[in-house]
């Protein structure tokens, strides 16, 4: 830990040598450890310019965390603007709160609103997987509470290194246990996510966390401190020495073996404190006892005070010695930077103080009154009455540096795109005989990325709350919001780092298209997007180009699909040494179901139902799971057709609403082969499949039909009585649909013409054995 206050002229206050504002003005030439705190020379100069003097130690601590990449989005801001600019009236109509608040809020109708957000907790999860992943859940859940919502579910997209690398087991066991240990203790069902293994994530795993919450419209709360004389209170856990500088030192730099361990920068979570905090906040909201509220996450009190103050009337006075501490030796700078978990800051009118304290006492939550809202436009922080921070809060929270980082299409992009899988060395001996194809399908569904994720998901509680209508391994997680009407929401997250590596613009669009398709497959109408943009160092022009292209692609695609980005997070510097991860924009789409009883599960059940393949198949194997299994990455990702995705979505939604389909499963990684096996294994019900009509129509061979990852496709199970109506609907919409087989409940097999019969027992064995084999 950096000793901020040890280098300055001593002013004896309490037990520290405190660097006061008065002192700072008198000692302009004092050396400050701005570089150790992650600031660049030009940024430090800017701080001095903004203040008109050198910052105090405490001010330096605040600026260093708030101007970090993690908190200020300084490298991505210029590009992220597109999410706010490329917005049509159609996209705005249900948006109650947009980007910029803790999380966006979308109107669900009937007076209900929903808020959701996805965030990264990558770096801490590599340093200390259990606590990193656990506090990732904690942080995103507090973002949701801060909006006034009751959290109702979580999801976790995970990306780890190679499955057989010795360090992967460390990260896997720690992160999964952390997500379970923390999430299961909050009473929030974990309803989905992703698990991808790829060596590009070896030294930099991606642990993203999504939370969704619901509220009545009148309960929406914003993070602002308004009303002169209103009191500022900090409540929840005490402030400790954990996570100091987490945002600046840890999340905004690349790992380097030569530096000391960063473990002290990782926060330690207490799920019980969080659970109590959730209930306590909901009781505060119910009684309308808070005017503004903000969770303490990255940058701790620095962030909460400066954001609350700058979003409100613009002034606040806070006495820092009033903060309840776990460790009495913390310096003011450390208190300001600490990222101790399970804390909230609120603004309360004087009349509500007694009622507020009664709620705290009921839940045995500690609190301390720190100060009050002013109209001075200044954020003043004192230490025993002596001023140690005197800043315009906007300069801390909003007016950080913005960089137009240089970017350029990498010199190697063309050669990567020219290197197609088809005809490559790795493409020799492509399976074609029935026995070879059966072996290939089995190999695919047992591969690290396509195998059953039960080993992970069985460690998460998917039932708590009693509102889970769908969870993994279905395409989307579905939770009921209103028990009277059955109103509910569906959520899916997707990303494909390989596609995005091959073509960042279209790769990001493919992630959105897949999440959109997954939500529609469950029968829900897609409404909003949250994204977690995981990339390498923005100081690398290649990476910066990937980021710029991905944001441009995503924002363009949102326009076409008509759904807005309501929030999200950017995680940069995800690399080991100078090797960045695959660009990995993880896209979450939220949809709405008027009645969750209508949701469509992914598995077949009813004997004799017709199975249809929607969409057309082209020879698109570049970047596919098959190519990945053969060790090839090159060429161009599958073609994006957003108009077709929208059409397919409408078919799936209408079919669900009108009872025309009993099952639906989207085609994505692993293509038709994976979708057929998953649909069969879901309920252990097989089928007889014949693909000749598809082969004839699309001009592809059986291998391509099974393993190509062409987009805009889904497999649906149609009751016999609905077949005519379903076909008529597809025909009227001009959407390709082919009857490819029937559900066969008795056989216990998946039979595909031209492929050796595969027993479900053998497929299940292969599908479910992979993770236990590596992780026990």
């Amino acid at each position, binding site marked *: 830990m950096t000793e901020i206050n040890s280098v300055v002229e001593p002013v004896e206050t309490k037990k520290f040598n405190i660097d006061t504002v008065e002192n700072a003005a008198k000692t302009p030439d004092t050396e400050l450890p701005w570089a150790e705190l992650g600031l660049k020379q030009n940024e430090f100069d800017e701080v001095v310019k903004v203040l008109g003097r050198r910052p105090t130690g405490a001010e330096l601590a605040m600026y260093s965390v708030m101007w970090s990449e993690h908190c200020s989005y300084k490298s991505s801001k210029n590009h992220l603007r597109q999410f706010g600019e490329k917005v049509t009236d159609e996209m705005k109509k249900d948006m109650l709160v947009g980007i910029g608040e803790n999380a966006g809020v979308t109107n669900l109708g009937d007076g209900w609103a929903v808020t959701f957000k996805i965030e990264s907790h990558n770096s801490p999860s590599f340093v200390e997987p259990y606590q990193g992943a656990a506090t990732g859940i904690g942080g995103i859940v507090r973002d949701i509470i801060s909006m006034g919502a009751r959290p109702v579910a979580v999801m976790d997209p995970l990306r780890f290194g190679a499955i057989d690398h010795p360090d992967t087991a460390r990260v896997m066991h720690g992160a999964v*246990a952390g997500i*379970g*240990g923390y999430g*299961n*203790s*909050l*009473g929030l069902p974990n309803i989905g996510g992703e698990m991808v293994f790829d060596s590009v994530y070896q030294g930099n795993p991606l642990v993203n966390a999504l939370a969704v919450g619901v509220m009545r419209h009148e309960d929406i709360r914003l993070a602002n401190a308004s009303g002169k004389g209103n009191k500022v209170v900090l409540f929840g856990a005490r402030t400790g020495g954990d996570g100091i500088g987490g945002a600046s030192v840890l999340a905004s730099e690349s790992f380097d073996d030569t530096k000391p361990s960063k473990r002290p920068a990782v926060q330690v979570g*207490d*799920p*019980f*404190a969080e*659970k*109590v905090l959730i*209930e306590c906040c909901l009781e505060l909201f119910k009684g309308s006892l808070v005017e503004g509220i903000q969770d303490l996450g990255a940058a701790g009190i620095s962030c909460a005070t400066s954001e609350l103050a700058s979003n409100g009337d613009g002034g606040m006075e806070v006495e820092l010695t009033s903060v309840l501490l776990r460790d009495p030796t913390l310096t003011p700078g450390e208190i300001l930077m600490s990222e101790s978990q399970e804390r909230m800051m609120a603004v309360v009118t004087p009349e509500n103080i007694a009622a507020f304290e009664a709620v705290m006492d009921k*839940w*045995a939550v500690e609190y301390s009154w720190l100060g009050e809202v002013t109209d001075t436009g200044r954020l003043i922080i004192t230490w025993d009455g002596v001023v140690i921070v005197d800043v315009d809060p906007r300069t801390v929270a909003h007016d950080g540096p913005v960089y137009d980082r240089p970017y350029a299409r990498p010199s190697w992009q063309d050669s990567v795109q020219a290197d197609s899988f088809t005809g490559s060395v790795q493409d020799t001996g492509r399976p074609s005989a029935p026995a070879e194809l059966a072996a290939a399908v089995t190999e695919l569904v047992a591969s690290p990325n396509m195998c059953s994720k039960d080993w992970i*998901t*069985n*460690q*998460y*509680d*998917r*039932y*708590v*709350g*009693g*509102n*889970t*209508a*769908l*969870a993994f391994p279905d395409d989307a997680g579905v939770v*009921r919001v209103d*028990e009277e009407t059955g109103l509910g929401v569906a959520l899916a997250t997707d990303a494909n780092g390989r596609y995005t590596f091959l073509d960042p613009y279209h790769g990001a669009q493919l992630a959105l298209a897949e999440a959109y398709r997954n939500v529609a497959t469950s029968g829900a109408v897609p409404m909003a997007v949250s994204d977690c943009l995981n990339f390498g160092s923005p100081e690398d022009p290649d990476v910066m180009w990937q980021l710029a292209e991905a944001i441009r692609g995503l924002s363009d695609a949102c326009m076409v699909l008509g759904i807005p980005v309501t929030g999200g997070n950017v995680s940069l510097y995800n690399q080991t040494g100078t090797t960045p991860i695959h660009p990995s924009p993880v896209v979450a789409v939220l949809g709405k179901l008027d009645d*969750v*009883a209508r949701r469509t*599960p992914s*598995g077949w*059940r009813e004997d004799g139902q017709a199975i249809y393949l929607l969409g057309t198949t082209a020879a698109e194997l570049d970047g596919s799971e098959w190519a990945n299994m053969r060790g090839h990455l090159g060429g161009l990702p599958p073609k994006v057709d957003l108009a077709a995705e929208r059409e397919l979505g409408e078919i799936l939604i209408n079919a669900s609403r009108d009872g025309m389909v009993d099952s639906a499963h989207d085609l994505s990684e692993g293509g038709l082969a994976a979708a057929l096996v998953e649909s069969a294994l*879901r*309920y*252990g019900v097989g089928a007889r499949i014949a693909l000749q009509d598809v082969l004839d129509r699309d001009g592809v061979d059986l291998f391509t039909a099974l393993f190509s990852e062409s987009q805009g496709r889904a497999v649906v199970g149609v009751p016999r009585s609905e077949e005519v109506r379903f076909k008529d609907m597809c025909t009227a919409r001009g959407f390709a649909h082919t009857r490819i087989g029937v559900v066969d409940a008795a056989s216990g097999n998946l039979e595909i013409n031209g492929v050796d019969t595969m027993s479900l027992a053998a497929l299940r064995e292969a599908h479910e054995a992979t993770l236990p084999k590596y992780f026990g």
Partner: protein
Amino acid sequence: MTELPLIGEAIAVAADAPGARRLAGARIGVVTFPGTLDDRDAARAVRLAGGTAVPLWHADTTLGDVDAVVIPGGFSYGDYLRAGAIARFAPLMSKIIDAANSDAKLPVLGICNGFQILTESHLLPGSMIKNDHLKFMCRDQVLRVENSNTAWTLDYEAGQEITVPLKNQDGQYIADEKVLDALEAEGRVVFRYVGFNPNGSRRDIAGISNAAGNVVGLMPHPEHAVEVGFGPESLDGIGGSDTDGLGFFTSVLNKIVGGNK
């Protein structure tokens, strides 16, 4: 099984039918400790079975006029010590212990953390330790109802197999051999895991009762198998029913209103 209306209709019928009105008058307390997670679910199960759920707070010093009590799952006070070890000392628990042991024999159901609290309170023998595989486990679990004479199992048949969700990390039931033999001999093993023992519990024991049969504890969660579309069948499709757990709640309600066996 019960002849009472189940899902959905329960509330509608409760409004007019005389018998149903009586049932809705049965008050089942649902205890919330700080850290309790499945309290809303237990309350919903009571409602769906036709009864009235009454919230009870750990710091309450009276049980009010409840006819039975459910201690739901979760992590009471965080369970950073042994699961249930602190909850045992809650003011409300002493009232529950007294009422369970009184002549009135208040029916008490402990689910998951509730079961752990009941053993810590010595209302039930034995204890729960960490699952033998050391991981949290969430799965749809088949149970055999071994004793259909307890307050909470009257609506089942002895030997009936039911599917309810299981989700815990400290679910391995242990007791010394003498206690286990006595439990078996006295018919106090109420539920046994079938097909797969998910946590290493001695003799596949999933749930037990006290000698009088009014206090029952089990690790699996019947309150998560009470509603079509949100139970084990919908989520895992293993061929069970979404509503196998409802019998716990109809059993006790029928017993309270005197309408059963």
